[in-house]
């Protein structure tokens, strides 16, 4: 039996999620024994034509031609996994969906005239059917591995879409939100990161996107009580997963409000 083929596509992104695949060392060699890395321009010049069994797509669509890449990926792949904050909820470049792209170009680049980008940042899921969303900025290596292993075993991956808080307590972390009044999106953010930021004393900034049934209204009130201005709350909900429905809703509650 031939080995399952894996492909990795890239759209507008920082490549940090792809890098996590390379970072799977020390199990990378084992992985190569189980699957064929058929298309992964970042890691290998070798390109094996499709169809592919598992395809990871990193990044968001910011230009028209990227829609074609996404459609091609969908056609070529049996299981299409959108990864990262960009692939699942717009990524940092999704911020332009709530602003004028020209303003960003002016402020970020020395030569804005060299930049060719569309008005919006769309997740691949807005154009084609995605079989699995693997969030995170970047995605977690363990979860990435679990997705591949689960696909090889023919089962659903065990990812856990409960709030970061569950993981945080398992780590015996002191709750930052309660004990040190540090703004933290843990209660409304999906776990997968191993509660990385809170474990190091930083409030969760929501990079895995909202957990199921996230209560953004209550979260917003809590952040407000901690002294955050409406504008700061909007910024927190938008951050790198501004396209996620629950966070969009959270931002909307405070958008345009005066302090």
């Amino acid at each position, binding site marked *: 039996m031939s080995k399952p083929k894996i492909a990795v596509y890239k759209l507008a992104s920082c490549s940090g999620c792809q890098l996590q695949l390379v970072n799977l060392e020390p199990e990378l060699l084992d992985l190569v024994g189980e699957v064929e890395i058929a298309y992964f321009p970042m890691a290998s010049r070798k390109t094996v034509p499709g169809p592919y069994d598992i395809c990871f797509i990193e990044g968001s669509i910011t230009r028209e031609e990227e829609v074609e890449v996404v459609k091609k990926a969908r056609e070529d792949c049996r299981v299409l996994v959108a990864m990262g904050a960009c692939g699942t909820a717009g990524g940092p470049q999704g911020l332009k969906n709530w602003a004028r792209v020209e303003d960003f170009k002016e402020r970020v680049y020395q030569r804005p005239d060299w930049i060719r980008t569309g008005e919006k940042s769309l997740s691949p899921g807005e154009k084609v059917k995605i079989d699995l969303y693997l969030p995170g900025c970047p995605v977690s290596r363990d979860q990435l591995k679990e997705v591949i292993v689960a696909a090889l*075993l*023919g*089962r*659903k991956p065990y990812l856990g879409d409960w709030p970061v808080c569950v993981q945080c307590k398992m780590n015996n972390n002191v709750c930052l939100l309660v004990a040190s009044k540090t703004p933290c999106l843990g209660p409304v953010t999906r776990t997968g990161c191993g509660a990385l930021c809170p474990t190091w004393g930083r409030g969760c900034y929501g990079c895995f996107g909202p957990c199921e049934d996230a209560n953004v209204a209550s979260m917003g009130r809590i952040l407000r009580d901690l002294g955050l201005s409406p504008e700061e709350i909007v910024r927190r909900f938008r951050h790198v997963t501004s396209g996620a429905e629950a966070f969009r809703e959270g931002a909307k509650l405070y958008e345009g409000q005066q302090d």
Partner: protein
Amino acid sequence: MSRHAANPLKPEPAVIKAIRQETYDTTTYTMGFREGERANRFSFEPGQFNMLTLWGIGEAAISLSSLPGGNGTFDHTVRSVGDVTNALRRLKVGDTVWARGPYGTPWPLKEARGRDLLIIAGGIGLAPLRGVIQAVTSRRSDFGKAELLYGARTPADLLYTTEFDDWRRGGLSLTLTVDAVPEGARWEHNVGVVTTVMDRATVRPGGGVVMVCGPEIMMKFVVKELLARGFRPGEIFVSLERRMECGVRVCGRCQFDGRFVCRDGPVLPYSDIKGRVGTML
């Protein structure tokens, strides 16, 4: 606290001895434990369940769908809807499954002895009742009337169709119904949900025991109809299905109203559920 040598969460190897495809998505596996006393004799009662493990895939609660076989075998009829049940489909005769059990409460076969028996099943809900039917048809004179009302989505979803004639010969009266008949399919029985054939049952309140198993929403309507016909809550038995991680009243997942489906159920008299919360019934 007592020191317990045995680990209740530890499964034991069981070998698949036969596989029978029931429908496009449902399969019956006949298994037997590979080692120890239970290899030749595994006792359980219809209505109980095992926890089945496929290493790397996970563990799932699956009802036993037969009487204990003479040589220690037991059946599981499985619909492929989850990880474990899907992975089971890829196994062949001779492969190993890991199992622990039996757990839970059985159907009240002893109470039904000498009395009428009405079985109402929907879809895969017939699986945990198959052992009851085997018991009744093999010891027919122990029971009064024996009637089965069985409903499925389409004719292609009916389980155990090859056993129906044996069951009839064994003295079970069968009434079949399907929700819908796809174009071109042959069907000479009733069309409609299972409650539409309830008037065909001749078992009357006070005379016997009713056993109901199927999707919870179906059981809800069946129970409602039974109560309307005068059956008492204590005469109606249902089997609940919940998520379970342990099967031994610890993990908390199957809890409803302070009860645990894995231990206080899955088979419960409706009188124990009535007025309680956490079920649709």
